[in-house]
């Protein structure tokens, strides 16, 4: 078994128009910048993919990564908890112009919906958002005397993931708080595509240290010294 592939271009080649794509990260931490930029490269060359639904905690920052994906006009809908950042202009302008749809989800509900999608649980109840605008239209039920809101699973066609170390079976570790949504999204996508700073042979990660077991991963591409959104923005970078 060998899930490794040679290039980020090859890694994202199968993502088509209208796909639902989960993208890991919390702000720039754990964001797979190189995979997103490869998707933008393909769009520039072929006009595809477009009309994407993207699931991410945020809505991009500056003009790189997710912000660049939105700026390129590739995203029709965003599912996120916090579409604000130090420089949120790209998303804000498109949203206020009615050019991008937003589904706003409380952060813990977003995480649990993704987990549920990966775990085969179609719906669950949470106290979060009860009595607020974000619970409107959702079923409510009482358990042990308290009201809870029903939420549904969230699944994707593809997940773009940033890992620290991967082995050839797709077992993954992450770097510090770059873990965030990444392990959940690995579970919830039909095809999970991982960029890892280092790819090692099977056995190169202590089984006690594996965070995401390879069963949740389909493709792994090595991206040594991956870019960080925060540093790109401080340098005033734009993509392309």
């Amino acid at each position, binding site marked *: 078994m060998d899930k490794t592939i040679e290039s980020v271009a090859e890694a994202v080649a199968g993502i088509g128009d209208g796909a639902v794509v989960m993208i890991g990260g*919390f*702000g*720039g*931490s*754990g964001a797979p910048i190189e995979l997103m930029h490869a998707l933008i490269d393909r769009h520039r060359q072929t006009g595809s993919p477009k009309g994407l639904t993207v699931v991410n*905690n945020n*809505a991009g920052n500056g003009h790189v990564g997710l912000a660049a994906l939105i700026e390129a006009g590739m995203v029709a809908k965003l599912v996120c*908890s*916090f*579409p*604000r*950042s*130090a420089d*949120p202009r790209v*998303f*804000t302008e498109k*949203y*206020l112009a009615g050019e991008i749809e*937003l589904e*706003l*989800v*409380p*952060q*813990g*509900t*977003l*995480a*649990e919906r*993704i*987990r549920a999608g990966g775990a085969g649980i179609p719906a669950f109840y*949470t*106290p*979060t*958002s*009860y*009595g*607020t*605008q*974000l619970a409107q239209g959702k079923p409510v039920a009482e358990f042990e005397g308290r009201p809870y809101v029903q939420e549904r699973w969230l699944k994707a066609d593809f997940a773009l993931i940033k890992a620290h170390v991967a082995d050839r079976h797709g077992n993954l570790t*992450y*770097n*510090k*708080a*770059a*873990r*965030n*949504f*990444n*392990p*959940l999204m690995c579970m919830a996508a039909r095809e999970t595509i991982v960029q890892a700073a280092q790819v090692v042979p099977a056995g190169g990660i202590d089984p006690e240290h594996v*965070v995401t077991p390879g069963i949740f991963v389909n493709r792994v591409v090595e991206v040594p010294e991956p870019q*960080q*959104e*925060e*540093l790109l923005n401080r340098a005033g970078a734009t993509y392309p």
Partner: protein
Amino acid sequence: MTGTTHDDIKLSNAQIAWRAAQDIADGAYVNLGIGLPEAVARYQPPGREAIFHTENGILNFGEAPPEGQEDWDLINAGKKAVTLKPGAAFFHHADSFAMVRGGHLDVAILGAYQVAQNGDLANWSVGARGVPAVGGAMDLVHGAKRVAVLTEHVTKKGEPKLVERCALPLTGVGCVTRVYTSLAVIDIENGRFMLREKLPAIGLEELQSLTGAELAVDGTVADLIVPEF
């Protein structure tokens, strides 16, 4: 209601944070909301160790690193670079919010636009205009054993932030247990604001005039004494 007196005598943000920090017990697991509540971590009473949680997957993080030594994979929920203390742990987002909703946090301390006397909190949206954003606010108000609010007593225009009913969109229903303001410490009990402490420089009547709902008093009201800094 001019707000002039309020501005002259009120506690600074750091002083409100100091007061809130005095109520955090040794060994407590605590989440501090983005902004004003973040300062609470700086005023831990000596000899007590609290463990701070951040939504994006760290327990026991510490202060910001010196400039130039940031690791941008090591940030807090406000996307600021942090450091780790001995005994820190990383976890993914679903585990992080299991800690929140599952009743594992001892205290969550949040900011507020408005708090109602029944414990309703509005702190995520000021209305329909602009881009709505909620983050973890609606999760954090559920599950922590105590949900406290840190806030100015009145808005910049001098309008009460403690009200009978929130006019702004709610973050959570009946969730707040204690409010630390720039003038007072107030518990929420049985649908009422129960005044526990107030600055010695303000009279009960004037404090009431700056509050949008009745302040109840149960026994004595202690002086709110905070160091100068």
